[in-house]
């Protein structure tokens, strides 16, 4: 407690100077003698910030992310069974915190709103002195706080965010994403769609009206039109709408034979349930069975949607049923702690925390530009997705992507998805320059 007060008083005296002379705090060129925002200095501990949605349409994902973060902190401090620290390679972590400093954390609620998320992140950075913050579940929020990370010079290790923009046109030097994106979902899904649904279909999009929905709609449209499908309509729906019936009725008479739901979280549960209730899946259009596709899928959503998800195709970043060493170790560790398997949101958040800690160990410092250089181009394995690389050009991780399908006869309440195909990394890779955007400078 007393330590915190010391920091605030120091900040205050600095601010006093800042008013008189030019500001020197939280501003450009403030790294004299390699000082940086929230430098832990000689302190015996570091603080990480976990900024997740605890209320709103993505609250389930947020809760699971928080569990994963807490588990990662435990493992970093050498408590518990070590989880992925037993399988990650190459790895420099020693189980004594990071660079010998004990890891502590603070949490915040993004409310799935950019404003609230930035306020919460600012509190973490300015008051709690976090050296890195993470979290996600909405790309809108991720992009907003990633901008903040760049401004204030504190690293942001994105959690669940699937929009192309996060590492595309809105990429930042201080933001990193382990999760896959809409473009990769499209590339992975394409061949399976062709095989199962043919090359002559009419697609109808319902899209969550923000950056993630837009880019996913675009990527999936590119994929399906590449197969020879046509696009009947693209309808934007507000996030957290609750009732989607007004959007679903027009589909019945549109002549489309495939519905693509660019929704996530509780929105997807609601829209899919209503689509099924309206009898879409029992319909025959143009002599074909009406099909529904949910390009981004998670087990948490499958739990909410229940039987409605049977047989529906989508993609996932990771699934707890994968049989590699890393996945098994993580599922075991998470299961022992909480009594149920982790979601893909939990996995990506856990991995991100470890990757950051490892990069600090490799760099031998918490100085952000050095840590960033360690992460850029970092190649690793044993974290659940096979060989993975953090591409230096856009801070996007490249790894295998899963195409999944809702199971028809689940054996337990968690066994809800069948893995249809593990699409190798080479098939989902793309040129980093296609989305534009600039990372910006190392030193801010």
């Amino acid at each position, binding site marked *: 407690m007393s330590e915190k*007060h010391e920091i*605030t*008083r120091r*900040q*205050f005296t*600095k*601010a006093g100077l*800042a*008013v008189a002379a*030019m*500001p020197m*705090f*939280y*501003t*450009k060129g403030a790294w004299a003698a390699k000082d940086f925002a929230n430098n832990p200095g000689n302190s015996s501990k570091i603080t990480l910030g976990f900024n997740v949605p*605890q*209320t709103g349409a993505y609250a389930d994902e947020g809760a699971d992310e928080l569990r994963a973060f807490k588990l990662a902190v435990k493992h970093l401090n050498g408590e518990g069974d070590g989880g992925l620290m037993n399988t990650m390679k190459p790895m420099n972590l020693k189980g004594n915190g990071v660079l010998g400093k004990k890891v502590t954390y*603070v*949490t*915040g*609620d993004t409310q799935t*709103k*950019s*404003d*609230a998320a*930035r*306020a919460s992140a*600012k*509190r973490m950075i*300015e*008051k709690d002195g976090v050296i890195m913050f993470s979290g996600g579940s909405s*790309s*809108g929020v991720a*992009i*907003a706080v990633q*901008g*903040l990370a*760049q*401004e*204030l010079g504190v690293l942001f290790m994105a959690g669940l965010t699937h929009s192309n*923009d996060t590492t595309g046109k*809105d990429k930042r030097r201080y933001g990193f994403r382990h999760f896959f994106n809409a473009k990769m979902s499209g590339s992975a899904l394409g061949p399976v769609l062709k095989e199962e649904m043919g090359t002559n279909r009419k697609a109808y999009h319902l899209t*969550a*009206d*923000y*950056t993630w929905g837009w880019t996913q709609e675009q990527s999936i449209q590119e994929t399906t039109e590449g197969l020879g499908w046509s696009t009947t309509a693209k309808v*934007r729906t*507000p*996030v957290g709408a609750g009732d989607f019936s007004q959007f679903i009725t027009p589909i019945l008479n549109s002549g489309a034979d495939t519905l693509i739901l660019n929704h996530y979280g509780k929105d997807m549960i609601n829209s899919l349930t209503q689509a099924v209730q309206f009898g879409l899946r029992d319909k025959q259009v143009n002599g074909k069975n009406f099909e529904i596709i949910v390009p981004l899928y998670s087990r948490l959503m499958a739990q909410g949607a229940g039987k409605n998800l049977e047989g529906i195709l989508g993609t996932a970043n990771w699934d707890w049923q994968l049989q590699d060493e890393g996945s098994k170790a993580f599922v075991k560790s998470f299961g022992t702690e909480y009594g149920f398997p982790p979601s893909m949101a939990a996995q990506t958040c856990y991995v991100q925390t470890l990757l950051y800690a490892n990069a600090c160990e490799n760099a031998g410092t918490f100085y952000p530009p050095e840590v960033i250089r360690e992460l850029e181009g970092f190649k690793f394995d044993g974290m659940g997705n096979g060989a993975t690389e953090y591409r230096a050009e856009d801070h996007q991780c490249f790894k295998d992507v899963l195409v999944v399908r809702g199971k028809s006869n689940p054996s337990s309440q968690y066994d809800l998805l069948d893995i249809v195909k593990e699409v190798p990394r080479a098939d989902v890779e793309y040129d980093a320059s296609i989305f534009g*955007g*600039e990372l*910006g*400078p190392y030193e*801010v």
Partner: protein
Amino acid sequence: MMKQLMNLLKKQSDLTTILMFAAGVLTMPIWLDPIGANYPDLLQKFVIFGIFAVGYNILFGLTGYLSFGHAVFLGVGSYAAVWSFKLLTMNVLPAILFATLISGLIAAAIGFVSMRRSGIYFSILTLAFAQMFYNLAYSVLIPITNGETGLQLRMHDPRIIDNYFSDPLPGLPSTDFFGMSMNGYSGFYFCAVVLILAFYIAMKIFRSPFGMKLKAIKSNQHRMRYTGSDTRPYLITAFIISGMFAGLAGALLAVTDPLAGAERMQWTASGEVILMTILGGVGTLYGPLLGVGIIKYLENIFSTINESVLQQFFSFLPQWGENIMVSVVSPFVGEGWHLTLGVLFMIIIIFLPGGLMEGFSRIQKRYRKAKIKDNQSDSTKE
């Protein structure tokens, strides 16, 4: 000398009021430190929402017209300011002027229509306008607002004025006031000075003939009309002024953090400023600011208290006592801070309908009475 000073304070001349107010605002980092509220973001929020509430009070406090859509102007101000950053310059001055102007124009339009009715009908009309703007921001106005993602700065924005004078630096530029950064504490002091100016204007309005007219409208509008004075222009002017205050607050939100999202215009944001005003005291000068302080403090500090903090706090108790206290208190902190706010709000409405300021004036009165009694008993003794 001392007596003179006391007399001066009692008179509460405009100058002393504003000097005391300025001293109070500028020393916030010192006296808010013990309660953990001394960090730039929260300090900025205190003063910015202070401006919002002070402006709202000009309408609601003076005329009694309960606008349920004031957050619109906050949102419009933010969007206007960010557009100024994108198109013209990162200097905050044009952004603030532009934002205040635009929100004033929109206030004139909304006020012109809504002010045809009073009471609940006026409230509903403003609410309808607010909801309309909120939904427009998420649908047809997306090219201007960027929808759910929020309007943000980009590396390659035109920024005509800045780029005319110098080549852009690498990275996103940050907002400044002729070289003074708007991040951190310097941002707070900038907003604090704006708040002091805004407060001064509000005070002048409160104590002017115009303010008197507005108060007369509040006490009996029909009588005002019978005496032959047209109330409508006064009402619309009050609405526009308070809309411009809100626009100014919205601009400052964008100044300290160049991002604008439509959630700022949601009806809950409009409701929040009503809560703030009522909590502190409707129609009083300081009341709304008190309300802002309480609500923003609860939102930012109370909401982060979790069980482990509580356990530390109650650790002086025996284990069972600690557990009981933690389980009793925990619903009211963390995510449950709204519950605390609700209880507080109810208590104040029931026992102090005039808000916290009424509480203070009651205490003051009691103190005075006691003093008079003392004096009397003193005189009888002699």
